[in-house]
């Protein structure tokens, strides 16, 4: 579904991604793992059209999307729940979610997805009328994930969705990701919680200083001694 070939991303004079290639097959969960600064976020930013200084190629269903504007990429079916949440602080929870569906026209579908997001995150329904900026950190994280879902994407990219969530919710968010995936959506996941992420992934790539150091099926990496030592804290 998504093919990345020899992608380079430069970011403020830093060569953040140094030629990575990866592919995300339809209907799978693919995870990027790596230390802070390894280039994970830069990669998804490039896919979302937010990184300006790039080289290489990104193909979505064989059509090139590198260099296109972020809003076109959303319409092409890719949504991002970004690092740092980036919710709209002065809009209410519901307005934030509805804006996620800005590129859609199917009213019944939007209403259905809104209900779906509220059922995934009941906490958001409790805060319906509250402004985004007054939510706690973890609630904002839920809102960011929910907003990404509202564009009804084919490919959902989640940049550290479990960041700042309580343990109970961390578990829940991974089961939600599975649930989203089982409804036919492809997921590209960035996580620091490597154990949980690898457990639910079909395939995973490990990034080190802008390059792919290792890749393989999630279960396989989970039992790889190198990975265990460096990322699972065994």
């Amino acid at each position, binding site marked *: 579904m998504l093919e990345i070939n020899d992608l380079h991303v430069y970011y403020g004079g830093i060569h953040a991604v140094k030629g990575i290639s990866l592919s995300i097959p339809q209907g799978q969960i693919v995870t990027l793992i790596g230390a802070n600064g390894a280039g994970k976020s830069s990669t998804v930013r490039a896919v979302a059209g937010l990184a300006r200084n790039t080289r290489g190629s990104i193909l979505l269903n064989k059509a090139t999307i590198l260099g296109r504007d972020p809003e076109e990429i959303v319409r092409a079916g890719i949504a991002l729940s970004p690092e740092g949440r980036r919710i709209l602080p002065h809009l209410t929870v519901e307005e934030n979610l509805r804006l996620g569906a800005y590129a859609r026209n199917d009213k019944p579908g939007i209403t259905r997805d809104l209900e779906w997001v509220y059922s995934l995150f009941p906490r958001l329904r409790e805060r319906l009328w509250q402004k985004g900026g007054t939510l706690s950190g973890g609630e904002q994280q839920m809102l960011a994930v929910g907003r990404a879902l509202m564009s009804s994407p084919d490919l959902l990219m989640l940049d550290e969705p479990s960041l700042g969530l309580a*343990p109970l919710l961390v578990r829940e968010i991974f089961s939600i990701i599975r649930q989203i995936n089982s409804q036919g959506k492809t997921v590209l996941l960035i996580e*620091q919680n490597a154990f949980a992420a690898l457990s639910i992934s079909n395939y995973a790539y490990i990034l080190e200083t802008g390059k792919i150091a290792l890749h393989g099926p999630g279960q396989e990496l989970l039992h790889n001694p190198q990975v265990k030592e460096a990322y699972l804290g065994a």
Partner: protein
Amino acid sequence: MPAPQTRPAYEAARFLGAAGLLMLALAGAETFLDPYKIQILNLIAINIILALSLNLIYGFTGMFSLGHAGFMAIGAYVCSLCVLTPAYKETMWILEPIIWPFSHMELGFFPAVIAGGICAALAGLLIALPVLRLGGDYLGIATLGFSEIIRVLITNATPITNGSLGIKGIPKFSTLWWNYGWLLFTLYFVVSLLRSNSGNVLKAIRDDQIAAKTMGINTFRQQALSFTVGAFFAGVGGALTACLISTIDPKMFSFLLTFNVLMIAVAGGLGSITGSVVAGIIITVLLEWLRIVEEEINLGFILIPGIPGMRMVIFSMALMLIIIFRREGIMGMRELAWDTPLRLWRRFAKTSAPPPPAKNFSIQEAETMPRSQAAIPGENEFILELRKAGMRFGGVTAVKDLNMSVKTGCIAGFIGPNGAGKTTVFNLISGFYKPTQGRILFQGADITGLPPHLVCKRGIARTFQNIRLFPTLSALQNVLVGFHVRQKSQWWMPGLQLPASRREYAAMREAAMRLLKRLGLDDEACEAAGSLPYGKQRRLEIARALATEPRFLLLDEPAAGMNPYETQDLMELIQDIRQDFNLTILLIEHDMKVVMGVCSNIWVLEYGICIADGPPEAIRNDPKVIEAYLGEEYMEYA
């Protein structure tokens, strides 16, 4: 590597050398140039003074101010009233006679300029008190209004200002020597202020006011200070202008004048001193040179009639182009330095000057200071106590009846579902919210409702969930801002080159470097905090908090976004700094490995109410906590 420090003697020699060169140049100019060119040189000096004063307010402290014409008017009128002779004033005021004491006062030129500056500064202070609480655009609108009010006041205060007729025949005291003398003084003062820790503090306020408050900075006081100093130099600029062009009237001090100054400051680069100097020269010269576009131009075959005001059209367009294509101006925030080539060579050769010897300004020493009211065990068993503390926002109760006693010297944890009110409690303790209920005691003293900077002074430091560093400041400067709260030197001292304040700054730099080294950030000391990778930003935020010499440290999700390996490092770091800096730590964290691993006592919050507290083993097995927070499968999952 930290930037090598230059020795005071060398610096003084350099300054005197430059001043000498300038004097030679001025003497030359006076002898060889015609009066028109000398006039332009004079305008350059005054424009640079004005641009520097605006840059201090806007570029370095981040306060968008459009009141410059008002301050200049005050300076110009006060100075003119002072330098004119009583006899002359008697004859000049024809609409209404001039009233006492203005009719009788007479001062020399130098004291008159000072008086103009001081009156402008007073007006600045007066306007600062109510409007500085506004921020951003509102401040711009308020100061613009102030400037117009001053103009209207001057127009109508005829017995003092001669009304709309203005004042004519002001003696032309503003010679090259005076103007460039004032320029040198302004440069010297502004540069020493900005190079001292006060400069770091002002820039910190510009970058992030909330974070600056947690560093113990009274942001309002610092902003008022910068605004007042800026107004002083604007007043001086106005006074010099009056004595240069010898005629002033209220129409002169319209918004257009502010716009001119703004244009120089923006074109040069907000936050760059040399930028203001360079742009001051270029724009003043261009403004004169472009007079040709306002005159008739005869191209031989066609006669273009002169269009008055064409210059400003061109300049406004140039300003728009700058904003569109090079928003940071000619210099951005960079500076041209005497030793730029030297520094480049040094970087090339990878040598560095040895750090200057300095008195130790250490955390240990700080402990012997009276302020720490040494935490004697037994006397204050609990360093922090919350007694029935609560917080309501409108109808929403965020925290209710929270009782909490944190033992001195321990590491305590604070957990609970998202939105339970944990960060709200941090904001209550650190003074960002005033509790609507209950009391907060720190080291036995009531700190309920103290503003953040005073809470910091008492010895409470914090970090933020979303990291709030001063992004444009270097890592070293970030830490130096933290030292400000314990600093003894005052803001006006750097200009006097007092050895004590010099030594203190050097000592602070050393202590800051040690602190950075302690947290493994010494290689990044000179890098902008905003460009550091995430993990290092987290560490730097802790270093900065430690610089305020806290007894009590609040960490809001320190392990968020870290992988297990980095988390392990962090746990060791937390335990080490507690030991080394003799701290008590309270942390919010969702990573149970951290909470269970380092905390000796844990409080659990749900819907603003404490549902459990106790040691980790008890919390881990508490059915209420498992249900609300950890989840049934927590054990196998972790």
